[in-house]
């Protein structure tokens, strides 16, 4: 399985994503610069966290016009896995690959802490190694994580089971609509989440609960592959 981690000017969780992929999936991961125009060689594309273009104007607004984003859209259309974490999630919504938008946190403050997440849908390619309804601890670190969709759209997303993670234990750290922490696109191959699974991959980091996002992807990829090979 081949993974690309996209680097925009201002990305800062790129190396962390590589480390997590390597340690959890036992596979290699390559950093690709935002000028890359072709991502067809990869099975998984990670859009990492950070402050692409300083998050100036709006988080993700400028990055979505980077040359690499056309390649990301093409990859998503082809069914390759795309995982957007934090700033990556913001970029994917700006690019229209995921519904909704991320606003300033309701507290108007940046928040970095371990939070409890409820796994809402354990049937996606990104969450199959979790148990539906279980609570996991994964850190957040963002100033603009306040997810917004209007009511009609929310109803549709709920019906299509596009909500993968919600903030649990009655603590919503940013004001997100319906406590949404992570969503998947309609075809199920693009996930965006504000919490950082790559920061929770071994006990020394305070939690290993994020590892299963990566292991889920690996399992999904293997399944698909065995299918092809069979």
């Amino acid at each position, binding site marked *: 399985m081949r993974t690309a981690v996209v680097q925009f000017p201002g990305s800062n969780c790129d190396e962390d994503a590589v480390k997590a992929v390597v340690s959890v999936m036992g596979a290699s991961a390559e950093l690709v610069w935002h000028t890359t125009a072709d991502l067809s060689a990869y099975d998984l594309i990670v859009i990492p966290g950070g402050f692409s273009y300083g998050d100036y*104007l*709006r988080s993700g*607004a*400028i990055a979505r*016009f980077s040359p690499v984003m056309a390649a990301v859209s093409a990859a998503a259309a082809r069914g390759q896995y795309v995982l957007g974490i934090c700033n990556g999630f913001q970029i994917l*919504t*700006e690019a229209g690959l995921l519904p*909704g*938008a991320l*606003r*300033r*946190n*309701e*507290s*108007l403050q940046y928040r970095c802490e371990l939070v409890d997440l409820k796994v809402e849908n354990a049937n996606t390619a990104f969450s199959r190694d979790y148990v539906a309804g279980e609570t996991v601890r994964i850190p957040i670190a963002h100033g603009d994580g306040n997810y*917004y*969709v*209007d009511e009609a759209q929310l109803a549709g997303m709920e019906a299509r089971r596009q909500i993968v993670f919600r903030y649990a234990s009655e603590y919503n750290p940013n*004001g997100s609509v319906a406590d949404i922490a992570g969503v998947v696109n309609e075809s199920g191959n693009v996930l965006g989440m504000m919490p950082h699974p790559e920061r929770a991959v071994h006990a020394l980091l305070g939690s290993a609960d994020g590892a299963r996002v990566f292991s889920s992807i690996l399992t999904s990829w293997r399944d698909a592959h065995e299918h092809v090979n069979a």
Partner: protein
Amino acid sequence: MKYKASIYVTLKGSVLDPQGSAVSKALHALQYEAVDDVRVGKYIEVRLRAASDADAGQQVERMCEQLLTNPVIETYSYTLEATA
């Protein structure tokens, strides 16, 4: 011709504006009791060259829709001023 476009970007009416509420609260705490409501948005000043007023307006609208605003949550308005 040269123009100055003044662009005002605000959250849509239906979208909660926590920054506006915070400023409003702070103003009340400072005894500005006559303040009823505050909304906070962005003010973007773009200086550009254009063939005509219409051309300038078109350019500004295009850049607003493409980059300067996120239509999911924001709206905008602008004024245009010929500067030379």
